[in-house]
């Protein structure tokens, strides 16, 4: 069964401007797939809805999340102290299709394959666990990550990636531009691309991959109510093959996603 549990905050530290890394310990987390997220429930009673945050890394009995202060909820989160408790759900969503099990899942064995994990801004965190899992499955992992100004999680990525390419919008560090521009210009080639980040970036990567006729998985974001498929709040438009041909359907980001194949997504909204 899925659950909402009380976890122990092991640490909650700033790792870049307005970006925090929190490690939460709980023996009830269960198995974690790369690309899954958790719901974080806040203490301030005026904010009732859970905050969905991607799992950045996971150990036997703990998970790590990395978040940016985007509003009141994440600001509250940033004030939580280590050794306190936090209400958190067990992993939600399907994650990236690398387990060979999920709907539309591709290959289970990545040996001999080169893959790129491409993250933009606060989309970088899930790339860490993803890189780790892909490496475990035998892939040669390259990272292409873009930031506004200040990179983070680079050391973590280096543990699992042969190369970590960094881009910044302002050119303060690494490639001057965004992650997809960098992939194109630096020719960071791969057999498959995995991505999380702003919609414009995901679309650019998806277009690039469609052109190259290779697979690309993207993790989408949408305002959520429940995060577990009850409220039908978080939909996106997905092209689905049916008996009658191609059809555009509203799919729940939290239930059917958050990861979709780039070609499936109806981008033009």
């Amino acid at each position, binding site marked *: 069964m899925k659950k909402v549990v009380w976890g122990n905050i092991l640490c909650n530290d700033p790792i870049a401007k307005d970006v925090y890394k929190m490690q939460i310990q709980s023996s009830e987390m269960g198995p974690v797939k790369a690309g899954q997220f958790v719901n974080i429930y806040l203490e301030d009673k005026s904010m009732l*809805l859970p905050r969905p945050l991607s799992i950045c890394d996971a150990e036997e009995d703990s998970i790590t999340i990395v978040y940016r202060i985007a509003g009141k909820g994440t600001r509250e989160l940033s004030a939580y102290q280590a050794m306190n408790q936090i209400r958190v759900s067990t992993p939600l969503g399907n994650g990236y299709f690398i387990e060979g099990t999920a709907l539309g899942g591709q290959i289970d064995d990545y040996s001999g394959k080169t893959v790129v994990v491409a993250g933009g801004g606060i989309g970088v965190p899930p790339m860490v666990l993803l890189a780790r899992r892909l490496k475990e499955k035998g892939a040669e992992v390259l990272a292409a990550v873009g930031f506004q100004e200040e990179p983070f999680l680079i050391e973590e990525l280096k543990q699992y990636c042969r190369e970590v390419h960094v881009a910044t919008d302002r050119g303060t560090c690494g490639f001057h531009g965004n992650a997809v521009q960098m992939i194109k210009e630096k020719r960071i080639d791969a057999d498959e691309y995995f991505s999380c980040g702003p919609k414009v970036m995901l679309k650019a990567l998806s277009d690039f991959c469609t052109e190259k006729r290779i697979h690309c998985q993207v993790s989408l974001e949408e305002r959520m*109510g429940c995060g577990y498929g009850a409220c*039908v*709040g978080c939909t*996106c438009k997905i092209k689905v093959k049916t008996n009658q041909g191609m059809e555009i359907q509203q799919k729940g980001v939290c239930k059917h996603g958050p990861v979709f194949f780039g070609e499936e997504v109806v981008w033009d909204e």
Partner: protein
Amino acid sequence: MDLSVDFAGVLLKNPITTASGTFSARESGEFYDISELGAVITKGVASEPWSGNPTPRIAEVYGGMLNAVGLQNPGVEAFIKEELPYLKQTGTPVIANVAGRTVEEYCSVAERLSETEVAMMEINISCPNVKEGGIGFGTDPKMAAAVTKAVKKVSRKPVIIKLTPNVTDIAEIARAVEAEGADGISLINTLLGMKIDVQRKKPVLANIMGGFSGPAVKPVAVRMVYQVRRAVQVPIIGLGGIMTGEDAAEFIMAGADAVSVGTAALVNPTAPVDILRELKQYMREQGFKTIGEIHEAFMK
């Protein structure tokens, strides 16, 4: 202690149900055993699939939320084929929530559902974005009566009419639908609300306005249940902001025979069963043996 309630002739083993649109059989069932509940109320089904409104459809407000899902649903046939068999196998009575844009649409769904194992139907005449002649069915007593009459004619299951709180006189609407044979009334649906993001300088919902729910709306809901209890004889499902067992007891004191848990289930996926447990504990502490005793204890 006996928590069972006879609702329009259907026996519910306890008064806790799920509010339409905040429950999904398989997904909610991953968090708790839904057969513990008195009944489940499904999300609204229409005669054909509806794709709902553009996103963002959800926003948070102080002590509550706004939604503009727009009754996205796969249509009554898909509901009967995919959702109902799963629910049936849990043994929980199913109350199917019915959406429509016209009287005919409501009737066609009600007729179709009458052939199935649903225990009752809840007719949603109160969705802010379903309009006829410029006013929602639920805000005009005559139109509310007309829908009730038409649906009652084709339905072979008890018909619950779900009312909107966005009206001047809720008792008048309640009397109008009772007069046309409604077997029960449920209230409240969402208040109409709006929020503007002053940083982005635009409404937080793509649809501009949306349905407002959660603990923030409870005082309005309790007041309306109290008013409707004084206006009609038919049983009432009370809802609107129920977060705890004591909240459930409050609605029952105000006059509800059963209650639904909505937004609370988004805030805490196991809320319906948690609230059931808390209600039992409240009854134990107060020495209440039946649900009826809770209402009788209320001193106006």
